[in-house]
């Protein structure tokens, strides 16, 4: 679905460029990178195009590819859903955190477990812990609910808990809402969803003793979170339009759009 929106955007942009025949040529900003940031950056890009008439492109390739694209100069701004490594910073790249993606670990409200450590969560999802009594709950099997392959939330959850390709899911659902419903329906279920999607039909548990909230995500104490980062070159000026976009995204004006995309604005 999102891909289609991107495709449509791309087509519209190409059409706009052709129609403008050069007059708009310099008003362009190209981004490249994290697929998890698709929803947020898409909304920001749309708003930016509406406000300025510039063209905005987004190439959903993945954080690694996006960082490389900035380095090679094939895009204006790279998008990464992880912090830059020291080696990447040493190569002259600069990171600017625009938003933080918090992932809530949810259980049924009737579940007596209220806190898990990150290790326990990893153990549960890898199938090493299969009964709630092993983590302080009732004697019943744990039902693992997750997201489908390639979902940004799944990618985020698995990379934070270090369970990539090792999760033994009972159900792989295709939206935050579906996970929410499944966990609300099953007393033994555990699932993960974007923090903004949590409703009171489920219980968001604290991780390492920290309750998930906008505040604990912002101050970094809630561990199941990851940053949405803009990657630029240190000391190299952006094009005028790219700078405008950068300023817009990091300004207060963007916060509402960022929140609407389900993540916590960093500024």
């Amino acid at each position: 679905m999102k891909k289609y929106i991107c495709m449509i955007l791309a087509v519209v942009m190409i059409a706009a460029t052709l129609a403008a025949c050069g007059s708009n040529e310099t008003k362009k900003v190209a981004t490249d990178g994290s697929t998890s940031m698709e929803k947020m950056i898409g909304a920001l890009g749309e708003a930016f195009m509406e406000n300025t008439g510039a063209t905005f492109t987004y190439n959903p390739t993945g954080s690694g590819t996006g960082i490389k694209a900035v380095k090679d100069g094939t895009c204006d701004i790279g998008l990464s859903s992880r912090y830059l490594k020291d080696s990447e910073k040493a190569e002259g790249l600069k990171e600017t955190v625009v938003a933080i993606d918090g992932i809530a670990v949810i259980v049924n409200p009737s579940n007596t477990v209220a806190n898990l450590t990150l290790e326990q969560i990893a153990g549960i999802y890898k199938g090493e812990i299969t009964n709630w009594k092993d983590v302080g709950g009732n004697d019943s099997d744990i039902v693992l609910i997750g997201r489908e392959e390639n979902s940004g939330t799944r990618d985020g959850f698995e990379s934070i808990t270090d369970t990539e390709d090792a999760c033994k899911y009972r159900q792989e659902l295709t939206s935050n809402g579906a996970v929410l419903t499944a966990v609300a329906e099953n007393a033994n279920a555990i699932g993960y969803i974007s923090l903004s999607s949590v409703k009171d039909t489920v219980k968001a548990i604290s991780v390492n003793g920290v309750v998930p909230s906008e505040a604990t995500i912002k101050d970094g104490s809630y561990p199941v979170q990851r940053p949405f980062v803009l990657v630029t070159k240190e000391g190299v000026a952006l094009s005028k339009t790219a700078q405008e976009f950068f300023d817009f995204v990091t300004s207060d004006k963007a916060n509402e759009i960022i929140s609407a995309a389900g993540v916590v604005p960093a500024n």
Partner: protein
Amino acid sequence: MVKSMKKNKQFERAVHGLFLILGLVTVASVLVITVYLVISGIPAILEIGLWDFLFGDTWDPASSDPKFGILPFILSSIYGTAGALVLGVPIGFLTAVFLSKKASPKVKEIMSGAVSLLAGIPSVVYGLVGMMVLVPGIRDLFGLPDGASLMAAIVVLAIMILPSIIKVSITALDAVPKEYEDASLALGATPTETWFRVSVPAAKSGIATAVVLGVGRAIGEAMAVMMVSGNVANMPSLFQSVRFLTTAVSSGMGYADGLYREALFSIALVLFLFIMMINAVLNFFLKGEKHE
């Protein structure tokens, strides 16, 4: 007179032309879909290898060492459809016999209305009710940790195919000449014997068509199945979470890219060929019967 005939002829020709064009819309759609599916489905199969693709038992497209085996989907689709037929055909068929032969006109009217209503319910509603009622029900009934399973999908599909089976079977049974049944009754057969020995055999090609329609609906259903089956690419087992061919395509399409995306088109192609094959085989049998 001659002139008006000429005019008429021209008008007729224009109308024929228009009808031909409208008729071609269908043909063109089928052609476009077929060609598109083949063109976009073949490359991934070539890259993965036909054998590994069709008979690989691991589907793990997003990992660092991606695997594209769709045997779990193929088997789940076959088992799911077969299971739906096992549950749905006896219920639908016997309902049709009852409504056509035994029910009073009033009962028939009310029940037929209910059947039509069942046919009109959107599949997402089947899925939703299945998710809220059936899945917890199966969990409690069988004492499972979770009810989202092949079993849940089979029950939902069985209910979904009932309307087409019942309606087409009724039409076929109603069309059996009354003389056949009267003759049978006059020879001393009981009504029940008459229905099953005379009416049903006379209507069997219509009933077979009903089953074909049921198969078509069951194997092509995605939404309702996705909501109750758990959607994990396991090898099928009755109380395990499974993923069908249809749901593999629809759950992956949102985010997939590269070879993963191409492989989804290949799955769609396999599904398409499956449905073609089933229709061809059953048509063959139906035609054979008619000629006898």
